[in-house]
């Protein structure tokens, strides 16, 4: 056992991770400057020179991290990592502590969430340690159908799993501060009951053995505040989702391994699939208010990175356990859904700028914040770089034709530009090559060697098509955030629903127009040099087609049947994912508008809902119902369930007296006094119930 303190053994590593990116970026910059030697320099060239280090630096950071991950993989793992410490020798005998598994939900598919909980429950039960774990389903849903469905799913789960007193449901009336507020609400109410909290997303799944190991790791290492697993993306059906999960399996581990080597105990927290020590989290990690003038913009949108930084600031370690299996999530099903998510993440990541220079934040966390910031800022920088580079090339071409003397013509060709080009290509593609090399020993899990290579090739092609599309959208997101346009917290679509061609033409058609204009302009001004821009321009021109085809389930399934984009979790489906295999399929039979009225007509759904509301609110004295509520009730009875908007439905459902009054009236009034929809729903609620 090495007894040298962790801090003193990380000096060389820190020096490497500081010097390697800087020296490689400097080398690239020198090559760029030398490529201009002997040439006329125009004003766009200064922009290119100014932006180059930022863009090239980002490519270099990616390369250095993945190369380090590859080196770590070659030597069999990081000896300084928390999961390789001596506590693993007596892991099985280590005691456990009270742990809450917290699942915040916001207008999610309650049945899919319920299936996930059931699988995790059974998996935990198999470990024989379930008595240490409680589940909390914490809802912020503002959709009446989702709320009622969540309640029913919760009760059915409690009944099926005999989980009364172990599986809890909590609905917040006011969804203050979105997901982070939901977690904080749990911490304030029940945080003292538990030593640890495992935070999951609605689509997250973790195996029982992984959860048990995480708790033991925390128990054995009291200096650790957060332990983040690296969730594998699974259950994808559409081509887009399959592509994401394949690239995550192929390259993600090396990247996470490299990040972990660089950051060590200042690791990342991604907001889910992680275990958190509750006492320091409650004491130190409530999100600070951002120092901006507008009161509505002071809340930190993307909480995880900041929470990790605050935990480390409070002298607790944060680690990423990249080697742990049994942690899963689902990716966005199509490009549009990913962009919707990115819009939110972009706003959150740009807010992190404030923490980049905050006092007391560790270097590893600053690196994480920088990577997060640049992941979005790079897009507008790249866009400006391309325009400036093209104008520079145009000016140079004009100069060469009209103004250059014979002595200038020979200087235009130089070897530095070629070396820089080769270096850039290597830095861009080497991480992919390393990812494939590290996967080759497990190629059978990816459908075999030839399938693996072909899938990697196709994934690279698709990524090249998608990258220019993302560049334009991300640039727009950055500008819109900087201009202060409001971001709405929307629920994430997790079902593999394809996009319509019409939607794709409407949403991405402007990129096709831009690409076509770009081709014409570039060809007329740059001549044959316009081919350098073609990878970008083709991406734009094909944007609607790319978005449409990648969103299709049958394309993804057909490729899967040919052994392409296969991931290890598909070769051998983990038991925790078995019942979820078809969860992504949209349920065509469900009529969403008829779910919430069941709380007004079905006695069991109603009584469950009333129990929830009664426990929260004191019953109002008779005769004190607000006139506006009375008006709402009457409107609902006479004009049917579609007459109320989302807010009005929620207001009524929160009022126990109104709900009970409506139950009485909707059953007692004659047909002529009721809207015809109610008669139909009455019959339906007699035939099937959400609780059946």
């Amino acid at each position, binding site marked *: 056992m090495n007894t040298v303190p962790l801090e003193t053994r990380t000096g060389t590593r820190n020096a490497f991770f500081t010097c390697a990116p800087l020296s490689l970026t400097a080398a690239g910059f020198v090559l760029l400057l030398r490529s201009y030697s002997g040439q006329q320099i125009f004003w766009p060239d200064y922009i290119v020179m100014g932006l180059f280090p930022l863009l090239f630096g980002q490519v270099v950071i990616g390369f250095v991290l993945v190369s380090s991950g590859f080196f770590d993989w070659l030597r069999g793992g990081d000896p300084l990592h928390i999961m390789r410490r001596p506590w693993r020798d007596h892991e099985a005998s280590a005691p456990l502590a009270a742990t809450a598994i917290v699942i915040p939900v916001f207008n999610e598919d309650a049945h899919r969430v319920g299936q996930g909980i059931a699988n995790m429950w059974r998996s935990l039960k198999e470990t024989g340690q379930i008595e240490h774990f*409680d589940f*909390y389903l914490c809802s912020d849903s503002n959709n009446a159908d989702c709320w009622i469905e969540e309640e029913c799913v919760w*009760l059915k789960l409690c*009944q099926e799993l005999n989980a*009364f*007193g172990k599986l*809890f*449901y*909590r609905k917040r009336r006011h969804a203050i501060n979105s997901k982070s507020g939901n977690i904080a609400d749990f*911490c*304030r*109410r*029940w*945080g*003292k*009951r538990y030593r640890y909290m495992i935070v999951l997303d609605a689509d997250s799944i973790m195996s029982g053995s992984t959860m048990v190991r995480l708790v033991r790791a925390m128990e054995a290492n009291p200096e650790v505040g957060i332990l983040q697993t690296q969730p594998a993306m699974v259950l994808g059906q559409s081509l887009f989702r399959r592509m994401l999960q394949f690239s995550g399996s192929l390259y993600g581990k090396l990247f996470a391994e490299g990040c972990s080597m660089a950051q060590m105990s200042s690791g990342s927290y991604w907001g889910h699939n992680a275990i958190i020590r509750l006492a320091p989290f*409650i*004491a130190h990690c*409530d*999100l*600070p208010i951002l*120092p*901006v003038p507008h009161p509505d913009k002071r809340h930190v949108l993307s909480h995880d990175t900041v929470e990790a930084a*605050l935990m480390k600031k409070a002298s607790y370690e944060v680690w990423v356990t990249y080697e742990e299996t049994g942690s899963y999530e689902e990716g966005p099903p199509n490009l549009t859904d990913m962009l919707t998510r990115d819009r939110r993440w972009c706003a959150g990541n740009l807010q992190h*700028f*404030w*923490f*980049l*220079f*905050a*006092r*007391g934040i560790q270097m590893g966390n600053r690196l994480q914040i920088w990577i997060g910031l640049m992941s979005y800022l790079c897009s507008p920088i790249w866009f400006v770089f391309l325009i400036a580079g093209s104008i520079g090339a145009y000016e140079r071409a004009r100069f060469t034709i009209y103004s250059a003397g014979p002595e200038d013509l020979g200087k235009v060709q130089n070897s530095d530009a070629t070396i820089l080009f080769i270096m850039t290509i290597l830095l861009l593609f080497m991480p992919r090559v390393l990812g494939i090399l590290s996967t080759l020993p497990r190629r059978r899990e990816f459908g075999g060697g030839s399938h693996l290579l072909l899938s990697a090739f196709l994934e690279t092609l698709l990524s090249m098509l998608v990258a220019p599309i993302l560049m334009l959208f991300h640039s727009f997101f950055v500008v819109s955030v900087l201009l202060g346009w409001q971001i709405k917290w929307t629920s994430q679509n997790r079902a593999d629903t394809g996009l319509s061609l019409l939607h794709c033409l409407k949403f991405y058609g402007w990129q096709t127009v831009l690409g076509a204009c770009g081709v014409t302009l570039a060809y007329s001004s740059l001549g044959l040099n316009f081919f350098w821009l073609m990878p970008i321009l083709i991406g734009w021109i094909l944007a609607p087609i790319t978005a449409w085809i990648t969103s299709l389930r049958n394309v993804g399934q057909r490729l899967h049947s040919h052994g392409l984009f296969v991931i290890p979790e598909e070769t051998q489906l983990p038991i925790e994912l078995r019942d979820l295999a078809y969860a992504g399929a949209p349920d065509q039979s469900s009529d969403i508008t008829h779910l919430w009225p069941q709380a007004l*007509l*079905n*006695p*069991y759904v*109603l*009584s*469950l809902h*009333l*129990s929830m509301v*009664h*426990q929260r609110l004191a*019953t109002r004295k008779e005769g004190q119902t607000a006139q506006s509520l009375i008006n709402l009730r009457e409107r609902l009875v006479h004009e049917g369930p579609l007459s109320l908007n989302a807010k009005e439905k929620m207001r009524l459902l929160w009022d*126990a007296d109104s709900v*009970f009054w409506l139950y*009485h009236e909707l*059953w*007692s*009034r*004659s*047909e002529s006094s009721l809207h015809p929809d109610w008669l139909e729903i*009455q*019959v339906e*609620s*007699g*035939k099937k*119930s959400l*609780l*059946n």
Partner: protein
Amino acid sequence: MNTVNDLRSDQERIAWNQAYARLQTFLDTFMLSDQPVTAQLALRFLDQARARHRENPSQEPTNLVMEQTQKHLIEWLAQNLDESDKSSSQIFSSGCIALFLSRMPQTAPAKFLASPLPDNLRQSMRETLLITGPDFHISSMTPRNIDYGPMLHLARQTWHRWNSREIFIALCFWIAIYFIFYWWLSSIL
């Protein structure tokens, strides 16, 4: 006169048919596993309502039968849960949850709304308890002050002081200066 009477009896028949259909649908929502029991219950409540209707013909049949059934349901639940001191809504919610969790409508449908309820069924209903969340253990979770460092000071000196009107005026001013300068240079060169 006969036509008027026929019309009235037709309307009455339709109204009672509607009342019966409504009551049947209402009882269906309790998911009794025995359909004849549901039908028997419906007929029993319908007969009682008819008797009351004869006393007070002005009341609408659907309204009468459903009010009577719901009242009976609440009384039955209160009696078997021993919760007569609570409000109707509270009795209904805890009673129906107890029915659902005890699975009595499926295992002993004939005992639904029957009095007296056998002790074992009454006991199984009373034993059900719905826990939505454990007792609170309130913790204080408040944000700690954080020093945002030099960027905050810079922002306070610049960005936080800007307002769009001033920026617009400044921009117009410098654009005007640029054009004047450009025009002047063009004229002298």
